[in-house]
């Protein structure tokens, strides 16, 4: 119960600090989220050609909400063509029972019941110039049609983006809005995922941030990265860690590193900073698990705020007496 209250408080704090539920979050400094067509090679940066995001709407929110998708189709200058534009991307929005609570919905791979819940909306995009670098709106949705999650204090919608066919890469964004085709944030809303497929900014020496949330039971975490291309370093920052190195992966490679979690880090977000050396495109995947191999959520707006390392001052008194 205490945990829930704390979590809800953290979510509220999020609202106070920032009121945008865009994905990627502004704080993250990530260019886009990415999903490749099913015929793509994983080495291009997407291991499973599917990405699931969750949107949280606070309980008792009265207005209908929209999930806006920026550049939903694979085509145009934003996306990554391989050969020719032949990729079909399907978005499916789920709510209702098990949309979130089903374990496989919160998995890191699109297996079995990852599409759990009640299908509320769906659209498949081919190459559609009408939506190239434009927003498409799913909705309106009745917030009550999401799955109510007490721990999160609100209703959760799930949007699954699947690369149905083709081998192009679709780069896109999400925004939880109260208006169709216009991004007006839902007060108190948030977005999170358990496996993040994203494109780092193609700026040399850019720094991206990801904010997984560690609950009170986390003792240790494993940070898994895929296809980082060894393009920089990844460090861990928290209240107790001041830049612990995370293992980095090469092309088409999964790598994990384990990190013990101290008490002061629990019930807080940690900051995984990805420092990119090069200025080229880099699509990668990351997920974080706890000691039970249960994936932990990355929140677009870090819960509890961006963690700051707390320096300790050790004072020792040297005696002159012999």
């Amino acid at each position: 119960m205490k945990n829930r209250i704390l979590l809800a408080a953290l979510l509220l704090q999020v609202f106070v600090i920032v009121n945008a539920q865009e994905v990627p979050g502004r704080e993250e400094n990530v260019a886009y989220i990415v999903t490749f067509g099913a015929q793509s090679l994983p080495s291009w940066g997407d291991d499973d050609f599917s990405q699931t995001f969750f949107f949280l709407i606070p309980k008792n929110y009265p207005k209908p909400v929209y999930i806006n998708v920026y550049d939903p189709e694979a085509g145009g200058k934003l996306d990554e063509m391989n050969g020719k534009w032949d990729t079909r991307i399907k978005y499916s929005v789920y709510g209702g029972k098990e949309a979130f609570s089903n374990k496989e919905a919160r998995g890191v791979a699109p297996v079995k019941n990852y599409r759990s819940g009640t299908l509320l909306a769906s659209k498949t995009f081919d190459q559609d110039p009408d939506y190239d670098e434009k927003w498409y709106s799913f909705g309106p949705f009745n917030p009550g049609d999401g799955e109510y999650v007490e721990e999160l204090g609100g209703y959760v919608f799930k949007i699954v983006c699947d690369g149905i066919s083709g081998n192009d890469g679709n780069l896109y964004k999400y925004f939880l809005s109260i208006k169709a085709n216009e991004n007006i944030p839902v007060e108190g809303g948030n977005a999170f995922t358990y496996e993040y497929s994203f494109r780092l900014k193609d700026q040399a020496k850019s720094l991206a941030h990801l904010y997984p949330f560690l609950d009170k039971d986390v003792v240790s975490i494993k940070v898994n990265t895929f296809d980082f291309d060894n393009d920089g370093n990844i460090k861990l920052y928290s209240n107790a860690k001041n830049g612990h190195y995370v293992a980095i992966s090469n092309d088409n490679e999964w790598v994990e590193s384990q990190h013990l979690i101290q008490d002061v880090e629990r019930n807080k977000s940690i900051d995984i900073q990805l420092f990119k050396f090069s200025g080229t495109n880099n699509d990668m995947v990351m997920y974080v698990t706890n000691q039970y191999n249960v994936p932990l959520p990355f929140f677009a707006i870090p819960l509890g705020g961006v963690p700051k390392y707390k320096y300790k001052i050790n004072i020792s008194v040297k005696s002159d007496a012999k």
Partner: protein
Amino acid sequence: MRSKKGVSFLLGYCILFLLGVRSVLWGQTQNFRHFGTENGLPENYVQEVSQDSKGYLWVSTSSGVYTYDGQLFTKFVNAASKEETGYNVCKVLRDRYVLGAGDGKVDVFKEGVNFPVKRLKPFDGPVNKLFLSPDSLYTYIVSNGRGVMCLNNNTYELRFMGDALKDMIINDLVMIDHNFFFIASSDGLYLYNYSARKLQPLDDNIEALCLSWNKLSRILYVGTKSFGLNSYLLGTDYQIDVTSNLFSKLEGPDASISAILPLEPGKSFYIGTSEGNIYQLDVVTGKLTSYLSRPLRVKISSLFADKTGNMWLCTFGKGLLRSGKDPFEKFYQGHNISALTADPAGNFYMAEEERLYLQNFSTGVSDTFSIKNGLPDDKITALHCDRLGTIWVGFANNGLYYKSIGQIVFKPFAQMELFIDNPVNAITSSIYNEVYVSTTLNGVVAIGHGSITAQYNTRNNLPHNNILFTYVDSRNRIWFATHHSTLSYLEEGKIYDFSMRYPTINFDINAITEDTEGQIWFMSRDNGVYAFKDTLRYIVNTDNGLPSNFGTAVICDESNQIWIAQTDLLTKFSLSRNILKTYSTAYLLDNMYFNKNACYKDKKGNLWFGTTEGIVKYNRPLSQSVLPEAQPYLLSFKVFDEIRSLNQKQRLQYGTYNVSFHYSALCLTQSEDVLFRYMLEGYDNQWSEPTKRLRIDYENLKDGVYNFKVMACNSDGLWNKTPLVYTFVIEKPFWKTIWFWTIIALLFILSVTLFNYYRTRMLVHYNKELSKRVNEKTKQLEEEKQVIIQKNKEIEQYNEEINASINYARHIQRSVLPDRSELNNQVFSSFVINKPKDVISGDFYKVYHQEHKTLVVLADSTGHGVPGALLSMMGNSLIDTIIESGTALDPSAILYKLDKAIIHTLQQKPEDFTNESMDVALLVVDTQNHTITYAGAKRPLYIVRNGELQEYPGGRFPVGGLLTRLTKEFVNHQIQLQDKDCFYIFSDGFCDQFDRENKTKFSTKRFKELLVKQWGSGIPSQEFEINSALNNWKGSNEQTDDIMLIGVQYKIM
């Protein structure tokens, strides 16, 4: 050369003009009533609405399905199941309802039954939508991501429609026939071939949101997400022949058509958009009419038109809106329209101060007339369009202007001088197109063919020169209204004073109109409204429901309803139903005031009113049908908050109860005006006042039969004829029931009967016993009787013997008594009355004669009967002995000797205490000397002489007896007799005799009077009289004592 400024001005004017046109097109407003979480509907996300055969609306929302009757939203629940039902979609069939739930179940309910007659589980996920086939034979059940099931509504057979429909979001589904379906989905418009299980894209360039299929023309209308409304002509081979886009005038979110409602199929539609706008689209002309001044900013999920003509807007986020037959529209808001009229072309002329607007609401053409059109810069006070279409404008100070039809320039009336500084109050025209202009100072001016034909003022019988209003009725009478309590009319050139006929009515008139029956209605300034035909027909004022007696305008509509404008209210009086209805803020008539006489009826029968906030138009109803009655019904009956069945009459046990009734009424049109009246028969004495309450509580109800009645009236004020009645009974206590008293009575009768029976038996038994005893006694008595008889016989015998003895004794006694002749001779005449009480007497008398002396003795022995007789015999004998012993005839001496003799004979001693004695009267009559010597022992001698009685008392003591120790003395009285003296000696028996009542003795006094009375009568007469007196006195009473009386009359020879 035109200046740049001029060009700019013109350009600006054109832009403004065009904007004005556009704004007019968008200026009409619909009145919407909103239902959301704040006022009755528990959910703001409404998917759709349908209506059942009874008229109830069924509202499908994400949190449940609700029925609505105009008053209440009631969640539809499965009465057979206690768990949350979770219905969120519903389809209404003729006599059944199909409901889908979030857990995938589909329940079918029959009308009037609150538990499902059939339950199905077509999917293991939520039912998202239901679609009905046009013939209502099938219901198509859609579960997004799971597919479509077809339910046969009669057999309840389920049929899966195929995998092709599985993985798609179906926004709409229309059945073409049993094999082909249109599918609207976010991925496009599809044609589904059920038999082939094939999904064929018809247009995958659109996101299809909603469909409307016109079977006759085979045209499908599709609301799209981005491209407005498309139409598709379907060929006989189920291929699309023609596609066209009908609705591209709007952009952005408004191009997303989320709902379609055919108005005239194939010709016009109501369209709802995702932005929350409503339009009416005329497909033929392309005309688009907006119904909202501002969009709702939420998606319109669906549109529905109910049977009473209301349109319902289901929104996703703002609940439900109803656009009904709310009759009013508002135009020119923000303008103070003080006068209005219209020409034959439908152009309205409206005055606001010095401005004159022109507006054609149909074509959108508008204009403003001012100085440039020849009008003066002066306040417009009157407007009129005559029969030829000429517009007449009256001004406050600057006279009268007119404009012929088709012209844009106004001309001043030629003879203007009459109207300068003479405000024009009203203008009207007769059927001959004579224009009558009413002024403030000069009465009325008649204008014909452009010139003045007549003037009417006080000089020619007009009651007043300040004429406020004129009206032409159907008989071409011109009515003139004033504020001076006079009303007159002009008919065939002559003015008549109407108000004279009704001197008691205050004809301070503001406005006049005529109804369809020819009755003239006058709106007084502060006394309500009157209607006259030949006589006063109606008075409508605050006494009978008019909100106020003050009015500004009055007009009659096509339905013969009188509309009365009163400051900020509009009241309609229906003559046919005698009902008043007032429209106020609920009809958007807020913060507006009706201007005096600013009203007009157009050719279509619509009414127009000029107000301080623009124009209010009352739309004439398309049909003359009246609103249906509001049908009341009972929602619940609770007893101490416990719900009781409504299906059966409730009988409550004896006690005191609190009950409550929750009721409602089915009336979807202007339901906010529905009113109720209720009464609990058995508790209330009368119907309640009209109320909007839906619930009523009653407390402390005692035993009895109660009938709860409720009536409802619709917004027209029409009460339903038959009230709803619900009866319940609180049982009487057993001690109040008939059966109880019957039983008591029966018990009483029974107990009485038993008592009587028992008593009778007892009596019978007693009687038997008694009889037995009686018999025994009788027997005993009989025996005793026999004994007694025997004894009686013996006694009789003894009696006879005794009587014989006594009779013999009497004989002896009588023989001893002297003969009566002893005292009847020449000297004495005498009688003797000797009446023994018994057979023998204790009284005796003796008579002795010795020479010239005669001794008479009368003695009364103690007692009577045998002892008395014995004593008398003894006394008789002793007297004889004394006389015979030679004792001189000296009464006193004789008495002395007698006394001693008795004592000696009876051996009386003082200590014996005996009292046998005798009272004796003893006299000796000396006939020679004519003297009596008398001595008595307790007996007197009476001598009556010349009617006077003298009494010579005897001694105090009797002879014999030793009751006293005193010496007895017996003294002689010497009395000289005279001729005819009567002397009497007697025993006390006569005076002691009781009368016939046994109360009074004869007494000595009465005896003396009797004797005195006999004076002068002969002895026989005296004897007779004295005997008679005695007998009369005694009557049948028993003789008290022995009676003896000797009466002697002495004659001196």
